[in-house]
């Protein structure tokens, strides 16, 4: 009915948070990584604002495509109140119930998958910096 509104609302929050974080990020952390297994290259660590951008893309994209599905099924109309379920009290109650269950579950799952992506990225960065310190240690010996 209108489950996409919950992830869309989260997308607005993450977009604002991303802008704030980006304005505060100034120094990019260097990270030495062996890309092809031989030659070490100095790359930048993925800034948190970019990681937030991943969540933002998933939430905006998903919400937009889901909104299209609702349009397809006639649940969104181009005039007030824009949602057919908002026409009467019984449908509105059902819509709010769906938003609080399906909508919240959608937002939680997308955020959980994003958290996994961030975790994997952090682990990869940690592994790369560990390998870098080993290389430096060997060179010092």
């Amino acid at each position: 009915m209108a489950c996409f509104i919950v992830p869309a609302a989260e997308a607005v929050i993450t977009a604002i948070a991303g802008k704030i974080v980006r304005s505060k990020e100034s120094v990019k952390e260097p990270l030495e990584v062996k890309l092809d297994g031989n030659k070490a290259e100095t790359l930048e660590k993925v800034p948190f604002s970019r990681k937030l951008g991943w969540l933002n893309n998933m939430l905006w994209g998903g919400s937009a495509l889901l909104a299209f599905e609702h349009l397809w099924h006639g649940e969104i109309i181009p005039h007030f109140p824009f949602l057919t379920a908002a026409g009467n009290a019984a449908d509105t109650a059902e819509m709010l119930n769906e938003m609080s269950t399906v909508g919240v579950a959608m937002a939680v799952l997308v955020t959980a998958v994003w958290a996994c992506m961030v975790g994997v990225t952090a682990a990869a960065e940690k592994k790369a910096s560990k390998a870098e310190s080993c290389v430096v240690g060997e060179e010092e010996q």
Partner: protein
Amino acid sequence: MTLLVTVFAAIISTIIWYMNAPKSKMKLGSLCLMYWGASLMWFVDALFEYAKLGSGYFTPAPAEMLNDFYLGLSVAALGLIIWLVIVLIKDPKGVIKATLFKKVTTEGEA
């Protein structure tokens, strides 16, 4: 069916992104994330529907299936249109700028 079409779109776009990363400037990552976000949301929708319908969820009426397939294809097309708009607005390769604004030649250069 819509979930299935979107998941396939996400998988194909991710494979194309992986083949061209990290040098590609075509913003394919945005397209992948958009499809994956939609796939996850439809997955949740499917879980709730399965909880309601039970095994009947897997045996939809042919007309309903065809409608959902059309919807899936339309969603995939809309995703591509959104991605195309992002690429044209951000113009990562500078193609639009190069097309719209021609370099002014000075007398020395000519």
